[in-house]
């Protein structure tokens, strides 16, 4: 049984001015918001500004969240997306030329789906114990094999695999039926 405070509760507490609830939301969502902003804006400086604006907006508008209309994660996603879109509209540099070739990038619907998957996964990673998050990061995104991860961390290969399995299981619990 998980005893972690839900996003819904944190948003409602933030609406009453609870600073610690707001900081918990920030700890959980700063990285997903930054990742979403980076995907959309493609510039780290402007993405940092978008994160700032997103959390300013969350702090101001938490009172408008209605838990009976849906869980907190999609509401936060919508707030972040709006702040990022506002930031994107504010950009002044216009492409000099329109490319002749059709883009092979994912369309808007696919981009939205990929963005939400990354949002939920990166949010869930924040809840893993440090040692499990570390193993997941090394196993999936460092380019190391599990044997190399074991050597690097100075722990047995079996422990690396056990932690990876435990982390996958825990992530599955955190995500639930949302994805």
């Amino acid at each position: 049984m998980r005893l972690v405070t839900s996003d819904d509760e944190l948003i409602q507490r933030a609406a009453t001015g609870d600073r610690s609830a707001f900081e918990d939301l920030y700890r959980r969502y700063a990285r997903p918001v930054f990742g979403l902003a980076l995907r959309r804006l493609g510039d780290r400086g402007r993405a940092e500004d978008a994160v700032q604006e997103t959390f300013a907006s969350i702090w101001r508008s938490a009172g408008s969240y209605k838990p009976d209309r849906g869980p907190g994660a999609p509401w936060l996603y919508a707030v972040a997306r709006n702040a990022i879109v506002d930031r994107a509209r504010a950009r002044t540099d216009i492409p000099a030329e329109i490319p002749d070739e059709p883009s092979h990038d994912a369309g808007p619907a696919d981009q939205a789906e990929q963005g939400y998957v990354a949002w939920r996964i990166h949010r869930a990673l924040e809840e893993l114990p440090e040692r499990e998050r570390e193993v997941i990061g090394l196993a999936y995104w460092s380019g190391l094999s599990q044997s190399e991860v074991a050597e690097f961390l100075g722990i047995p290969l079996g422990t690396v695999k056990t932690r990876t399995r435990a982390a996958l299981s825990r992530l599955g619990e955190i995500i639930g039926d949302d994805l």
Partner: protein
Amino acid sequence: MSDFKDLIDADGLDPEEEARLRHVHELLVQAGPPPDLPPALEQAPDEQEAEIVQFPLLPHRRWAVAAVAAATLALLAFGGGYLTGHSKGQSSFNTSRVVPMHGSGEALALLRVSKADSAGNWPMQLEVTGLPEQPDPGAYYELWLTKNKQPVEQCGTFRVHSKTTRVRFTVPYSFKGIDGWVITKQTNGAATPGPVVLST
């Protein structure tokens, strides 16, 4: 990245549980790595900074400006990054994120970054494995922050003394726009930064 079957010990897994874990595995692959959160975003904005965005005539980037100002004061006070020594223990280090670094050879590094103190000092612990020792006493390695993948701020210097070397640094910089770290090899008398040997 390894195949799903190589990542975990699947012995004893029933098909339903294996399918559940494989689904999470596929979502992780689809999501890709989470971005490195810039140290400037490590802490939540305070209420005043959150409220100030309501007023378009007021400085829009006050939070970032305050961070730069604090970093500048800290930079003057501390005179840049410094080496705080090395330790084999990790118990006193409060890691807030872990950044792997690798290069073309067998060398690897794990950089643990802690939260900044109230003055804006960011403690880091660097653990390096496999970098060759440099017999020349005037040679050393440097840890740099990068912007647009180019070294821009030096975090500190170190020498390796065994297979695994662990050192701690503290830097007072504002990290806005920073996109990673690199380790460079510095030889006696050569221009700095030297060639990159490890990067994020």
